[in-house]
């Protein structure tokens, strides 16, 4: 845990994540923003890896970097060139203040709180060796209802997306509905 390699990994990954998240905001071009967003997602997946959450990290790559970004690419492509800027609206100052406030608040809490009583390594050896069976048991055992509801939600979202972008005037509905 405290090996320099781990520390280095944490520093690099968090640096990548935060910097590219910042660049998503700064970039003028929506496609550049998208590229940086993917980089941020990948850095986040690396951070998940450092938390011994390999299943979640890979799911993160699969869902965020693989699917949602492609979906966004398609959405960007379906809009014309003029709409591909990444400009800010009038609310940029309040938004910056709000964002800084939230980040500051979280940081304050994170730094000020004494996490010692909540940061034991009790679970480390026992449960993080093989996470997948444990997660599988949880999803199909204790949280099976939520699991089913989530699947229904996904299905409805899929149908809704298809129905939303479908041409009601008899055209074809290819392309955008993934």
């Amino acid at each position, binding site marked *: 845990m405290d090996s*320099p390699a781990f*520390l280095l990994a*944490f520093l690099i990954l*968090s640096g990548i*994540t*935060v910097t590219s998240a910042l660049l*998503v*905001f700064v970039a003028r071009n*929506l496609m550049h923003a*998208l590229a940086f*967003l993917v980089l*941020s*997602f990948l850095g986040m997946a690396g*951070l*998940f890896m450092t*938390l011994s959450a390999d299943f*979640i990290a890979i799911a*993160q790559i699969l*869902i*965020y970097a693989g*699917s949602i970004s492609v979906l*966004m690419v398609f*959405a*960007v492509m*379906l809009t014309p060139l003029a*709409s591909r800027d*990444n*400009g800010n*609206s009038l609310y*940029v100052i*309040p*938004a910056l203040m*709000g*964002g*800084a406030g939230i*980040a500051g*608040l*979280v*940081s304050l809490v994170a*730094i*000020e*709180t004494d*996490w010692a009583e*909540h*940061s*034991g390594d009790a*679970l480390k050896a*026992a449960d993080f060796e093989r996470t997948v069976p*444990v*997660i599988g048991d*949880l999803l199909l055992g*204790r*949280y099976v209802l939520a699991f089913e509801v*989530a699947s229904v939600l*996904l299905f409805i*979202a899929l149908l*809704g*997306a298809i129905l*939303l972008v479908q041409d009601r005037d008899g055209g074809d509905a290819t392309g*955008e509905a993934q």
Partner: protein
Amino acid sequence: MIPEIPALDELSVTLAHYLLVSGAVFGIGVVIALAKRNAVAVLMGVELMLNAVNLTILAFSRFSSAFPAGDAPLAGHAFVVFVLTVAAAEAAVALALAVLVYRRRETVDLDRVNLLRW
């Protein structure tokens, strides 16, 4: 307020570090979601916020000894799976909406989509 920086070999990554990263990403996500005009960019901000939340949950799940070991040890992971699912669903619907808005209004600029009904 800021603790002094210890030497490299003494430094260990703790819950607070993860929470700091998470807070930073969440804040940036908030700024993007509030400040951007493009609907897709707003969605990017929302996804960043969700990512930050996932990181928080996983960090707590990793470090916390608040749960007794026998009782749902990886509940945080299961929770993140649900968050991922919802994020995927949300992205699909939101992007479909963005495309629809563009088709109807020829713009994805949220400032100019100011009619409740179009």
